[in-house]
């Protein structure tokens, strides 16, 4: 791991890192999940969820502002004290690990279902792990460069989605406002979780050049780009399939592209899936980076080699164990669902509230 403390990334690089670490494999499922929760109103809940996520981004940015020069673990330590802070840091390690495992296994599952049913899935895990390790071993600057470069893929894929508009029908959005309140709440929480990478801002924002105002603007902008991309995906799949079909289709976007006609090549879904490897890798790499950062903060984890490889081996081992095994993977996913709430919503809110206390602290100290 290169020394990140003195190397800083630029604002735009930070934006791209945020975008790329947010978009993972999940988006392919998002339209179906939203539809399950809120029916034809799923896209409205996504908008609301997107707006709420902006509030969380603001909170995170504000918290970081109050602890200049400290990343997530420094902030946890200074907010909760040394012991509880270390425990919180370690639990974040677990959280990042679980998310990384989830991303890895869901990518393996996706490719296994769509492209390579015969290939052993651990080969895909290893390749994705190697790519991610290669990226993060260059430190934050390399992550920034790689993620910035791969932003091209986002534009390319977005334009491929336009094929779906050929059969789009606006009538599928009708009738609006039919979902129940609990449906709305479900939809909104799904949307917020799908935008939950704002936790990663704790890791990247402190190492970004620029004033606080600029950082806030870029973070919100990046968050909006991701939310709009989600909205675009969801709107296209809703308008292409309609409620009845959506219930039965797990990855509507891919099905949509499968049937799309183009004169040069058929089966655009295969190309999109290949390109999606980029998103899978970047999202996975950011969480792996987070996990390794967290692991480095655990006392006694001094040897760097152990640090890098133990985390990755752990991820690989659990992924192979979970893999395509229905029962094991359910366990991982349900565990993740249970803890996500605390790490993405509860702890950031607590940190935000504590930061006000600290500020008062500081002012008093300054005046006295």
């Amino acid at each position: 791991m290169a020394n990140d403390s003195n190397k800083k990334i630029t604002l735009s690089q930070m934006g791209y890192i945020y975008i790329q670490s947010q978009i993972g494999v999940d988006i392919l499922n998002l339209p179906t999940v939203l539809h399950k929760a809120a029916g034809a109103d799923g896209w409205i809940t996504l908008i609301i969820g997107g707006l709420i996520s902006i509030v969380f981004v603001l909170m995170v940015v504000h918290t970081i502002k109050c602890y200049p020069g400290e990343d997530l673990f420094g902030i946890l330590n200074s907010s909760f004290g040394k012991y509880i802070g270390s425990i919180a840091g370690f639990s974040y390690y677990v959280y990042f690990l679980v998310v990384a495992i989830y991303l890895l296994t869901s990518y393996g599952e996706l490719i296994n279902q769509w492209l390579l049913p015969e290939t052993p899935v651990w080969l895909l895990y290893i390749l994705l792990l190697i790519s991610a390790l290669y990226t993060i071993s260059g430190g934050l600057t390399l992550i920034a460069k790689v993620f910035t470069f791969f932003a091209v893929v986002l534009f390319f894929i977005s334009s491929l989605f336009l094929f779906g508009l050929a059969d789009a029908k606006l009538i599928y959005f009708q009738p609006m406002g039919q979902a129940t309140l609990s449906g709305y709440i479900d939809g909104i929480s799904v949307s917020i979780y799908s935008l939950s990478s704002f936790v990663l801002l704790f890791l990247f924002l402190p190492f970004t050049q620029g004033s606080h105002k600029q950082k806030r603007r870029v973070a919100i902008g990046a968050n909006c780009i991701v939310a709009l991309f989600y909205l675009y995906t969801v709107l296209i799949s809703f308008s292409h399939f309609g409620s009845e079909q959506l219930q039965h289709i797990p990855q509507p976007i891919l099905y949509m592209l499968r049937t799309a006609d183009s004169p040069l090549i058929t089966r655009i879904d295969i190309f999109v899936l290949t390109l999606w490897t980029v998103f899978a890798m970047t999202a996975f790499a950011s969480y792996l980076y987070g996990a390794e950062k967290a692991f480095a903060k655990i006392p006694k984890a001094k040897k760097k080699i152990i640090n890098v490889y133990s985390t990755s081996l752990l991820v690989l081992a659990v992924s192979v164990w979970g893999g395509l095994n229905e029962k094991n993977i359910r366990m991982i996913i349900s565990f993740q669902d249970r803890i996500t709430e605390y790490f993405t919503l509860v702890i950031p809110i607590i940190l935000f509230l504590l930061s006000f206390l600290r500020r008062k602290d500081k002012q008093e100290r300054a005046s006295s």
Partner: protein
Amino acid sequence: MGFFKQKKKEPAQEKVIREDKVPPHQSTTSLEKNIAYIKEEMRNSADLKIRLLPDSKQALIFLDDITDPDKMQRYIFEPLLKTDGDIRKIKDREESNDLNKAVTALIGGKAVYLVEGNSTCYLFNVQMDASRAIMEPVNEKVIKGSHDGFTEDIKTNINLIRRRIQHRSLTIKKMTIGDYTESEIAMVYVDGVVNGDVVKELETRISNINTDALLSAGAFTEYIEDRTYSIFPQFLSTERPDKTTALLMEGRIAILFANNPTCLVAPVTFFAFYQTPDDYNTRWIVATYLRLIRLFSFIISITLPSFYIAVIGFHYEVIPEQLISPVLGSIRDIAYPPLAEAVMMVTILEVIREAAIRLPSPIGSTIGIVGGLVIGDAIVTAGLVSNLMVIVIALTSLASYVVPSNEMSDALRILTFPLCIMSAVLGFIGIGFGLLLLLIHLCRIESLGLSYFTPIQFRDVKDTIIRVPQFLMKRRPEQLDSPRPYKSNQLGENNGE
């Protein structure tokens, strides 16, 4: 693993003293002793000529093969006649009391004049000039633009650059590398445009080179480049002074070598290998079109064979309906899997290429016909390789030769192999991972500590992937972090960007 380690004895070796660091050896007043010392030091070399002048009181010593008799006549003997044989009255001479310095001068093409009863050595520069005429480099031809090229003579090369940049801030730093060869190199840059940190970095790296002999520019890069284990060249080599000048004015550093027409330029980006002077001499729309063609052929040259393998091996569905039956027809009777076909064809092509380079040019074209036409046709009729594969490989190698830089084209052709293997194992996903790793690797490479691949800012696209008109290129490349980021003095509001 200390258990297996055996202590190795350092092999004994005498230290070589560089010519410019030899300790002085005081000359004596005896002519005979001085000559004997010089003879001894020169190992009685056959080309060492000692010409004793009348009554053996004076001697002229020189190396026969590197001195010019004409110059000797003009600078030594003619003036000597005019001054009645008194060497001290001749101008244009150096003096020294150090015999070792005299020996060094001898090697450098000077003549040493010794006088009995006088311990001073008189040195005259009578070196023979051996340089070929300035010609256009064979491997970097352009359609329009200047047709001169660097030669083996470093002075001529510096001359060619100085003539193009008429400003006092053009800085030239000379160094010598190699204890035996003492190869002269010259760092050339425009002070005030170049990033000072990069110059310092390059200087420290050069001063850390420790070797007996510096033989080529390629060896030189291996001593100082950032990533020796990468397949991508991190120094741009060129023999064109116009290209060098353009790169210098962007804020890069050129390194010239004595006895080598190659000029290395650093730091460079990946895209610099895709630029030619022609781009700036044609209309910008045409240049942009050609740039895009080159970029396209870059993609073709590394992915086309692997794409073919993936389609045939994994994803038949990708082929449009009307094409399926011709494709199937062509590969039905082929015994080998597509990967073996591809490897076979690529190897054959490389063999033909290598043979054509080594052979003299009249026979070379025969090889092209035998290799290309005969083998290409026979291999399909024999059923070893499908004719689709022949098309694919031929296109691939053509595309790899589009790159203006020779080293980059070599790198691309080798990169085909790992991608082919990946795609034979995992289909499109394999290609995806291969390209992913390749691009991460490219992002990782640095050239003299500056990033090699990413166009960091959007405005850098203006002179990389496309070429916009000159008046829109107001800035130097962002990569270099030049102290003079704008290309002109006028920075009005309309001129800024």
